[in-house]
């Protein structure tokens, strides 16, 4: 089987928000909607204070509560682990938004653009009316992944087949790949370094893994 996941190396992320920007460009998300964002945390108390940048977004959970609550079956999980929303079925009830423990879903009811009512060229080109009044979120750039697979490319290795956020990461903090394949880029990282997942105690099985100790022992 295949299970797509992102590995985020907390030691490498510099909080530059390039992934956030790349995602916003790729998806032309309206103001306030960030499928990918990077949290800026200040951890500890003086004198031991450290700054940590934590990329978050839809975790494409193994057991997604957003899917379980959806009354319309608009939210589904593909065999390869990607959690999708069918914008033509969704009624915009917002149930999935309160069910997601990662604050990954958004709903926008009227068109909004970066410069008020003036859309940019990119926003105009990518505007999709189907997204109004329904739930929306990160898709792991499913179009790119599917395009890559259809053309014999390896997602996470070939840039054309890799999510925009991962492609754009200038410090190589983000890696995309198949955790079910023991030889994949992500599996190797997870084997080699210590990792955790966010809110794992909730039983959602999130598929963003955070590396927190990448210094070799």
């Amino acid at each position, binding site marked *: 089987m295949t299970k797509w996941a992102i590995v985020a190396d907390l030691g490498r992320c510099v909080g530059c928000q390039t992934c956030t920007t790349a995602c916003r460009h790729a998806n032309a998300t309206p103001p306030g909607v960030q499928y990918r964002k990077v949290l800026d945390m200040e951890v500890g108390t003086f004198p031991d204070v450290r700054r940590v940048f934590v990329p978050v977004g839809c975790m494409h959970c193994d057991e997604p509560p957003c899917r379980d609550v959806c009354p319309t*079956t608009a939210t589904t999980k593909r065999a390869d682990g990607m959690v999708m929303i069918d914008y033509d079925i*969704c009624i915009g009830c917002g149930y999935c938004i309160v069910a997601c*423990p990662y604050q990954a879903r958004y709903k926008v009811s009227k068109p909004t653009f970066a410069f008020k009512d003036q859309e940019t060229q990119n926003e105009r080109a990518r505007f999709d009316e189907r997204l109004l009044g329904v739930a929306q979120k990160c898709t792991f750039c499913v179009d790119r992944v599917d395009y890559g697979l259809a053309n014999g490319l390896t997602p996470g290795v070939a840039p054309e087949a890799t999510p925009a956020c991962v492609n754009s990461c200038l410090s190589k903090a983000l890696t995309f790949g198949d955790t079910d394949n023991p030889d994949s880029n992500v599996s190797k990282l997870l084997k080699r370094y210590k990792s955790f997942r966010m809110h794992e105690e909730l039983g959602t099985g999130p598929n963003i893994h955070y590396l927190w100790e990448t*210094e070799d022992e």
Partner: protein
Amino acid sequence: MSEEFEDAPGMRHLGLSPWLQTAWDLRAAGNFIGGGSGTGLLIIASLGAFKGLYSPVLLLAGLALVGLGLFSVFLEIGRPLRALNVLLGAKRSWMTREAFVAAVLFPLGLAALIWPDLAKLVWIPAAAYLYCQARILEAAKGIPTWRSPLILPLTIASGLAEGAGILLLLGTLVLDGGAPEWVAGTLVATIAARIFVWMFYRRRMVGGEAPVEAAAVLIRFSMPFTLGGNVIPIAFLVLGGIQPDIRAAALAAAGLAAMAGGWALKIVIVTKAAQNQGFAINHSPARGGGESGPGFKPGWREVPKDKD
């Protein structure tokens, strides 16, 4: 914040700590208010039918409340023309199941207006509906105050208390001789159950199962709720018992207060103590050859563990 951004939840909340969810507002609370009170009333009235209680007004009031609740949630959806899609998710979603139960409850309730014997069956779909409502909240894993298993008995006990309260209130208005004696007893029992579960629920939320801010909302609400929604109704019942000349008014006031307490409870839980999960890390990373550091869970009392 400019008006154009009003629909953009993330814009208003870029913090790390849990923030108040904005996806469900008073309209969603309205579904739990109407559905809870309506089914509570229908359950008690329907069981009362075994003791000879039959009143079309009570049946209609119960159905109207459930209907208003459903209408209220209809107003919340973003694509109302697709509302029937809500019937597709029965395999998993308690919201779909609620809609299916409604499709049994309404015809049966209306049929009981014509054939009074059917009133004895109405409690079955009404109880199922109330149960679905409780499960809807419990399945919302992103909101710690909703996903607690105690939300099940709390929602059910409050629905029954609200229903008993409304029966007492309406009874004084529309039933000859007022509501039967046992209704006051039912109100006491359901209020006792509600306040009992509330105490446990509040304790668990404050003890660390909810973000600090959500727990603070529950703490602030606890005293007015305990007194206004639970102690005062009992006091009115006692007053009605010892002062026969104001009995009818006291019973109606008791019912009203018990109902209002339940409505306030739902408004608070759905729209005020509904902080989301927020974000957390179990470890902060080693940087520049240094040691890795502790975890961080902003807005919560507990911090994730430090070392593996």
